[in-house]
């Protein structure tokens, strides 16, 4: 199957601090792929590299065959018209209504007449079940509704690649289930490809085709959801089943407990 996203030997550093180390990853066209890992392991940085918001220190990031590293601003914007990104808390424009948020990209990038934009926005809002909220302002929406409006906005120009940055953060179980179902259904309906960055394991494993596990800036394992669930790798097992202790210790490294309690050289 043809790969829509190909990441080859990518290293990335902020100043001298390495964030990503020799990342190799492929995302086949039409699939929903998840990148999992602890906070700060480099997941979102990787997403930003795919979207061209950051450039790798070395290596290649290709989307639909185009080398993202080399694009100038015009080229980057041309590629981004074919991509969509759902931000962690939606990032809706707070001065625009739900309708105008969804219509934003259509008005910016097309010359469609306003009545056609109206129909398209209604279709997008209907797809996420929020046609009735078209006149509301972002401040009036719940967290789950805001995420659904943001999803409708992402779909505005029918992107070939949709990126989700922590789409389940802060949602109640019902909203989480709705969003995860929408991600799966809309990916199939649009014939798009999706990349989800998250650490919500159980919800994500229900809807994705493939999972990459990252730790400390590197891919440590990858596989299908079943392979991940049944993995005996200590890190993956601890992460998937939410165990308190394992390769990632409960205690942050520090001085001896007894020393912090002022017990001198007593028991550690």
């Amino acid at each position, binding site marked *: 199957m043809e790969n829509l996203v190909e990441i080859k030997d990518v290293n990335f550093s902020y100043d001298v601090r390495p964030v990503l180390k020799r990342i190799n990853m492929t995302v086949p066209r039409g699939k929903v792929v998840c990148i999992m890992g602890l906070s700060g392991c480099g997941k979102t940085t990787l997403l930003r590299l795919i979207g061209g*918001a950051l450039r790798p220190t070395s290596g290649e990031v290709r989307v639909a065959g185009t080398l993202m590293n080399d694009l100038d601003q015009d080229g980057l914007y041309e590629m*981004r018209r074919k991509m969509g990104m759902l*931000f962690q808390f939606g990032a809706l*424009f707070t001065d625009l209504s739900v309708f105008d948020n969804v219509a934003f*990209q259509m008005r910016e990038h097309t010359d469609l007449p306003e009545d056609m934009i109206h129909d398209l926005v209604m279709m997008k809002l209907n797809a996420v079940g929020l046609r009735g909220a078209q006149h509301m302002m972002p401040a009036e929406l719940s967290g789950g509704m805001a995420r659904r409006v943001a999803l409708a906005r992402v779909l505005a120009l029918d992107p070939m690649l949709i990126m989700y940055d922590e789409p389940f953060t802060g949602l109640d179980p019902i909203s989480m289930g709705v969003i995860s179902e929408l991600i799966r259904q809309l990916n199939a309906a649009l014939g798009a490809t999706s990349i989800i960055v998250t650490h919500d394991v159980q919800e994500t494993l229900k809807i994705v085709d493939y999972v990459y596990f990252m730790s400390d800036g590197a891919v440590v394992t990858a596989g299908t959801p079943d392979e991940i669930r049944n993995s005996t790798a200590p890190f993956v097992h601890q992460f998937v089943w939410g165990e308190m202790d394992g390769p990632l210790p409960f205690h942050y490294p520090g001085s001896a407990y007894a020393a912090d309690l002022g017990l001198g050289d007593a028991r550690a």
Partner: protein
Amino acid sequence: MPERLVSGLRGIGHRVVDGIWRLGYASRFFLLTLLRSTTAFRRFGLTVREIYFTGVLSLIIIIVSGLFVGMVLGLQGYETLQKYGSSEAVGTLVALSLTRELGPVVAALLFASRAGSAMTAEIGLMKATEQISAMEMMAVDPIARVIGPRFWGGVISMPLLAAMFSAVGVFGGYLITVVVIGVDAGAFWSQMQSAVDFRQDIVNGVIKSVVFGIAVTAIALFEGYDAPPTAEGVSGATTRTVVTSSLAILGLDFVLTAFMFTGI
């Protein structure tokens, strides 16, 4: 001791380098804003919307302040001029003070604290809530779409607000000196008419207010765009906007006055 000295010198060096770097970054931001201003004019509705937010919504504070400043000028001017038997010249004093100095300067200071701080907070919060990043990911240039219209909205609003301030100030001076104190209305207006020169006083005042508008708006937008995306970051940026803009207005006023009115 030498270690403390070296550490102190290193600290000063860091601050100087940081300051120069930030100045360079701000200059680049300003140039980009100018270069990508076509959207602000091609879709003038966006700029008109910003003129409403920065200009129209500042009208109340400008009008009330202008009225009081004009009335105080009238009172003080009359008090001083009557000692020399030239109380009819109070209209000239009020008009020249307002058109040359107080109109542009006080209106710009009020503009910085009312509209400038609002612009910084808005852009800073847009950044903190990832609205700017979202726009970039939607292939929409935030400098062209968000910064440009706000910049030109501010630059267009500022001279209009300064003119409004001066006009209302003159009316305030008229109210106090002619209506309340009883100075002759004919003398008040005619002396003003003969003393105020259009090119020397009005145009120079307008030039000042345009320069202040550019300075305040550019500072406010840069501070918002450069604000760390946290609550402290946005509040610090808002404070810096008011402080830096106020100092810039007063500094630029001195330079402009030196060139315009003293022939330096």
